[in-house]
């Protein structure tokens, strides 16, 4: 990886540490997504399959902690919405701001607070923590950025904090294909 460090544009520097896009999920936490995730990972943990175990261990059914980010993701389509509905809007803002057509996530940190339960309504906001100078990796040339997301339930209890490191990039011309 090469590093051609440059300063961050002023408009972006002003957004560092600022809470953006506060959103409350449009539907409550429900067990269907827990079952989907359990099936997708072949997870037989009785905490999520057996109500009696859930009652004894956690005082009732909970959602898998790692499904936290699920509640920030919009419906792919809904009435009145235009264009692709995306999660983590700050990530897509940065792609557009730097004209970087492609992106991948490289790091993910999750800190879990109070359990999330069916019926909870989760709110979240995104905070841009950092943007790197130009970098070149095997994928192409672009920038890394770190975005934090804080999740709360309807009572304002902190249920988790998540941090993503993304790499927005443009593929090398010789590889072609990026549009």
């Amino acid at each position, binding site marked *: 990886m090469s590093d051609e460090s440059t300063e961050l544009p002023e408009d972006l520097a002003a957004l560092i540490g600022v809470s953006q896009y506060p959103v409350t999920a449009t539907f409550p936490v429900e067990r269907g997504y827990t079952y*989907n995730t359990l099936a997708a*990972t072949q997870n037989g943990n009785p905490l999520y399959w057996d109500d009696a175990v859930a009652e004894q261990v956690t005082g009732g059914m909970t959602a*898998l902690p790692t499904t936290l*980010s699920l509640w920030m993701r919009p419906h*792919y389509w809904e009435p009145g919405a235009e264009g692709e509905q995306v999660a983590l809007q700050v990530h897509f803002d940065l792609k557009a701001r730097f004209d970087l057509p*492609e992106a*991948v996530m490289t790091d*993910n940190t999750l800190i*879990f607070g109070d359990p999330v339960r069916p019926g909870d309504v989760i709110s979240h906001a995104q905070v841009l923590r950092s943007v790197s100078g130009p970098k070149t990796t095997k994928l192409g040339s672009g920038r890394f950025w770190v975005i934090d997301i804080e999740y709360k339930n309807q009572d304002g209890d902190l249920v988790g904090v998540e941090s993503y490191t993304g790499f927005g990039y443009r593929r090398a011309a010789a590889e072609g294909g990026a549009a």
Partner: protein
Amino acid sequence: MNVPTPLLLDAVTVGDRLPELSVEVTPTTVVLGALASRDWRPMHHDYKFATERNGVADIFLNTPNQAAWFERYLTDWTGPLGRVGRMKFRMKDSIFPGDTMVFSGEVTEVTTDDAGCGWVGVEVTLTVGERTCSSCSVRVAVPSSADDNPWARRGDRWVP
């Protein structure tokens, strides 16, 4: 009601190795994981987008689904009383259909915090053949005694 016998803190020692988990990855594994996490981005279900736009070999496992696999791997070991407090992972290479992903883990830390919560630090490695695709550091709470329950902890008694 059958809560399986939990893993207790005093049964864990730094250097302990978790049983390996091997999973054959299919296109369904990738798509099911993406949709379960409401991740509609096309690189997780559209081969042409993944290969022609992203320039990778195939559709690939998405980030939240990897987190869910790590959680499953950890709680397979701890049992249902194990409560993951913190997880940090770095994805160095992608997981594609046709891969056999292998999870392995080693205990790196065994501690008790000021609130009496027992914590185990585990370094998990996700490999495909010779490729190390992801490395994950996990902090998971396990019972300190037979009558302890990490899930009962709230507020100042839960410091992940």
